[in-house]
């Protein structure tokens, strides 16, 4: 079924866009909501990001791997762009790093993968883990991360990229690709 959905999406069959949305709606909306905060802005973000992908000449290809992961990244990138644009216009407060408090009562996107990624993050050296957490969970730019951690911009970029590669190796080694 998943393969059929991907094939229909790549072929731009008219019904595929809605089908893909419904398949991944909760993941996509959660990501947009986490970055943007408001429900209405998150809704517009998911809608516009999917349409952008749908019409893009350089969109999803099977060589890229998971369609779900691709779409999550597209929606988050759209959300990050919007948040930064709002910040430039002064419509959004400059972000101070904060890890959102997730209690036992908080429903999260995927508890199983969350446990895997928490363990994998814990195995990273702190010098890689801290900038990555700030960039992803704190929604900070690498410039903001560099400033707050007192590190050169190039160092932050390379440490974040190295952290991502190490996480990938770790997650694959756990037996299931991310």
């Amino acid at each position: 079924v998943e393969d059929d959905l991907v094939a229909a999406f790549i072929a731009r069959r008219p019904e595929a866009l809605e089908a893909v949305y419904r398949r991944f709606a909760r993941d996509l909306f959660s990501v947009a909501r986490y970055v943007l905060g408001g429900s209405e802005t998150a809704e517009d973000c998911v809608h516009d990001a999917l349409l952008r992908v749908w019409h893009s000449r350089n969109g999803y290809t099977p060589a890229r791997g998971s369609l779900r992961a691709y779409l999550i990244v597209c929606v988050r990138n759209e959300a990050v762009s919007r948040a930064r644009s709002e910040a430039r216009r002064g419509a959004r407060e400059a972000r101070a790093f904060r890890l959102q408090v997730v209690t036992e009562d908080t429903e999260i996107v995927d508890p199983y993968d969350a446990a895997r990624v928490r363990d994998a993050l814990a195995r990273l050296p702190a010098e890689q883990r801290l900038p990555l957490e700030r960039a992803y969970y704190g929604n900070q730019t690498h410039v903001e991360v560099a400033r707050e951690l007192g590190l050169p911009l190039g160092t932050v970029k390379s440490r974040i990229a190295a952290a991502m590669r190490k996480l990938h190796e770790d997650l694959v080694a756990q037996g299931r690709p991310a």
Partner: protein
Amino acid sequence: VTHLSVTHLGDEAELYALGLLDDAEREAVDAHVATCEGCARRVGDAEDVAATLAASIPASEPPARLGRRFSARAQSRTQTFDWRIAALSAAAAILLAFSALSWQRTTSVQGRLATMQIATQAMLRSHFTHVPMTLEPGAATSAKVIYDPKGTWIYVVALDPADRFDVVARSASGERDLGALSPSGETSVLFAPQTERVESVELRRGASTVARGNLRY
């Protein structure tokens, strides 16, 4: 990032997946990845990690109206590809108008609404066409036959008829009396399911033919 068409991705692959590139840099990555399988796999690996990082953020249920926006878009695309939907919508509107008039003016409202519902469903489930009926002098009405090109139903409409008209259908197996038109406001109508293609339809007043329509398939 500026020469990605000739240079493979470095750390940009991971920075892309984390939303740390600006719009122009992202577009450059997308353009390169579209033509380079190795870099596509690398970006895909980073996207897998980013999607797994998202597993631990709070879940939010999307509003139902977001789904409806995609549904509406899919439906509107279907309509642009099928001109017949517009004609069917018009037919449904006409039938609804008939129903409203029936409600006001007839005594057998339930029966008429049931007929209308059957007609509406038949018309919405199939394509249809129509022909005007040619009137005999002094017919005192105008009439049309709306019908399924596959021959499964016909719908006869006469405007403001002065008399009670009977409908007779002619097909390969012969002539059949389908019954009388039923008054419905400013019109009289008859919906009749068929088992074979009707070749022609006549409206009769008593023994005289007042209108005739030849159906084309």
